[in-house]
């Protein structure tokens, strides 16, 4: 099909942008650059991809076309054939239809954000490459290609977190993200290896795999599922591999918006959904996933209530929302999870971009305690962020309401009440910290803060996204409200559904909304007219504001012993033993070779004698052999 070529172009345009940019960046000096050309090149790739993605998603939605495109055969062994193939079904196209458009908005925003940065070209090279890899991840027709994209986004995320590499702490954060992701990747890689080992013979594309899962023994199936989920844990920042996400906020704000809110962190959710046929076969693992998600959500929300860094609050909230998605996936409803991914990308991007605008306006101030009373100075931004905050708190009719409520309903009806209550409490906390955030920034401290004007180019993308935040929720209107859950129907994943009466549904919505409103009211009481700073004395708040000391625990539990071990290995084993051994071997070898060069003393007679000796030995050999 002709349109299948378009899949290739989704990948191709951002890559081309990146290549052209890097060539230009290498050969044209900064002073001689045409700004417009560079701007165009920076955003062109992702914009094209966005248009193509939306077009293809439309085609799929209306005509149910699936697209496939085989670029070439990557590996052809007898037992395993891996094609470098792309595939787009409803799931992929759903992902693409927010990755690329939201990406485009963030790219435009980044244009303004990075305007004065001296290495903005480098930034956009990375950014374009990131989009390329993200698309590769989503489009990959087999786990291997997906892994390529997976690693690619990991690398780009590493480069972008450490973008300001002059500052050592940034590099540390980047390394942390990278290493923790490696742990996850190890799980993912082991999972896909095991898949290849067990059923790779019958084809390695997702379709082929999904037809042969039944061949694997249950034990290994569980193992594979857990390993795959470990990969998802790393990428989507779940307990215990989450600690990198808050630190990853060291990168420029557009990076946080694009990578650590809207796209890359959702890769884990996407991956689990991609393997939904596998996960739907292992319910115990599913429950485990759900609990991990629940505790991640709760923990992140708790921490967020005491965090003061504007970006870290959002980071924790991201983690918390990802927890919701895993709860839904673990308990078997993948399309709800993905719908939450979908809406989340809009409101979280809005929040991040807004935060970025505030940071810029306040001369790189990130502490919310030093902000306040910005409502009058930045009214447009205030309303946009308010919309997003209402949405994330799940207030009707904003999009977050639709996605989160569906999840809550599913959690309740599946009978795992503990998870439901955790989710409910988290939802309460979410509203609380979100409005703490809003009140702190826009209302508290009746004092003047000097504010730089925000450029239009920055505000427009935020506005566009916040507009979508309001409307996208209606894509999956539940039956109760007269809709027919089109989104879930479109995706048609292996969803589990439980029938609940409308009465239960309504009462759940009411309970939830009451809790949320209560939280907002509490936040209003506490922070609206805040003048004195919060009390730091209580143990709980200390615990919370230090993020439960998880970093420290990790440090003491893993890093320090490892460090000690590696120090030991370095000093005792390496220098003391191996180096000595190698050195003595090497020097011994050189010594021998110097001894050996006695044979090269330049005397012809010696050379002749040696040769003669050789012939002589050959003769003796042949005598011995023949007799």
């Amino acid at each position: 099909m002709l349109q299948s070529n378009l899949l290739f172009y989704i990948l191709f345009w951002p890559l081309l942008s990146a290549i052209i940019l890097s060539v230009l960046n290498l050969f044209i000096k900064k002073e001689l650059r045409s700004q417009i050309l560079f701007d165009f090149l920076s955003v062109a790739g992702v914009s094209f991809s966005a248009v193509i993605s939306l077009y293809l998603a439309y085609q799929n939605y209306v005509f149910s076309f699936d697209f496939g495109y085989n670029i070439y055969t990557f590996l052809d062994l007898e037992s395993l054939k891996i094609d470098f193939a792309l595939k787009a079904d409803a799931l992929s196209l759903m992902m693409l239809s927010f990755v690329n458009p939201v990406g485009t908005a963030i790219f435009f925003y980044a244009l303004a954000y990075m305007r004065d940065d001296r290495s903005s070209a480098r930034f956009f090279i990375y950014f374009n490459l990131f989009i390329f890899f993200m698309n590769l991840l989503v489009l990959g027709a087999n786990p291997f290609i997906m892994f390529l994209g997976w690693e690619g986004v990991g690398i780009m995320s590493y480069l972008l977190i450490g973008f300001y590499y002059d500052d050592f702490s940034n590099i540390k954060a980047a390394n942390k993200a990278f290493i923790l992701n490696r742990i996850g990747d190890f799980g993912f890689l082991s999972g896909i290896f095991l898949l290849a080992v067990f059923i790779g013979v019958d084809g390695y594309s997702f379709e082929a795999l999904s037809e042969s899962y039944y061949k694997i023994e249950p034990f290994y199936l569980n193992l594979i599922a857990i390993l795959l989920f470990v990969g998802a844990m790393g990428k989507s920042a779940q307990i215990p591999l989450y600690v990198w996400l808050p630190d990853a906020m060291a990168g420029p704000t557009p990076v946080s918006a694009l990578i650590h809110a809207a796209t890359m962190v959702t890769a884990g959710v996407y991956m689990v959904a991609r393997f939904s046929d596998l996960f739907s076969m292992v319910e115990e693992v599913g429950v485990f996933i759900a609990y991990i998600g629940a505790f991640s959500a709760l923990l992140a929300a708790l921490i967020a209530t005491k965090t003061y860094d504007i970006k870290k609050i959002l980071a924790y909230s991201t983690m918390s929302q990802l927890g919701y998605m895993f709860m839904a996936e673990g308990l078997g409803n993948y399309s709800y999870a993905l719908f939450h991914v979908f809406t989340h990308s809009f409101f979280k991007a809005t929040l991040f971009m807004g935060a970025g605008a505030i940071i810029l306006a306040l001369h790189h101030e990130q502490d919310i305690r030093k902000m306040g009373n910005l409502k009058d100075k930045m009214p447009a931004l205030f309303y946009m962020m308010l919309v997003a905050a209402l949405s994330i708190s799940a207030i009707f009719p904003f999009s977050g309401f639709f996605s989160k409520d569906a999840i809550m309903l599913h959690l309740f009806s599946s009978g795992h009440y503990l998870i439901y209550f955790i989710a409910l409490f988290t939802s309460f906390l979410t509203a609380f910290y979100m409005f703490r955030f809003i009140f702190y920034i826009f209302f508290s401290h009746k004092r003047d803060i000097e504010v730089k004007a925000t450029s239009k180019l920055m505000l427009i993308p935020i506005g566009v996204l916040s507009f979508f935040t309001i409307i996208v929720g209606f894509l999956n209107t539940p039956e109760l409200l007269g809709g027919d859950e089109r989104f879930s129907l479109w995706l048609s994943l292996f969803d589990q559904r439980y029938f609940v009466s409308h009465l239960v549904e309504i009462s759940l919505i009411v309970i939830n909304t009451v809790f949320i409103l209560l939280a907002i009211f509490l936040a209003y009481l506490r922070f609206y007219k805040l003048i004195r700073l919060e009390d730091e004395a209580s143990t709980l708040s200390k615990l919370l504001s230090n993020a439960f000391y998880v970093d420290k625990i990790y440090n003491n539990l893993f890093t320090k012993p490892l460090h000690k071990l590696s120090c030991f290995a370095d000093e005792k084993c390496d220098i003391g033993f191996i180096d000595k051994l190698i050195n003595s071997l090497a020097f011994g070898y050189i010594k021998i070779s110097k001894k050996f060069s006695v044979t090269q003393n330049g005397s012809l007679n010696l050379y002749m004698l040696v040769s003669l000796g050789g012939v002589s030995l050959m003769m003796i050999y042949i005598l011995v052999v023949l007799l």
Partner: protein
Amino acid sequence: MFKNYLILSILLFSLGLIGAVSRRNIIIIYMSIELMLNAVSIMLVSYSSFYNTNTGVVLSIMVTAIAAAEAALFMALFVTLYRKKKSLDTSLFNSLKDTNATK
């Protein structure tokens, strides 16, 4: 009888080997090599004569011609070497060697 000729030539060849390897005078080395080639020649000619073919003789002509070709180069060698050091001692020509090689 044939074997006696062969043994004679092997003995001659060995004498040539000893001379070539143990002596330091280049001319004597050269002559020893010639002796070795002559030994080969004897073998070929005796084969020819005992087996009544001419191939051996032809091959020994080849050997002689090769010896002659080597002779020409050796003559040039004597001249060049003698010009350099006024001697034909092999042990004087050892500027090419490993720097680490102890003499």
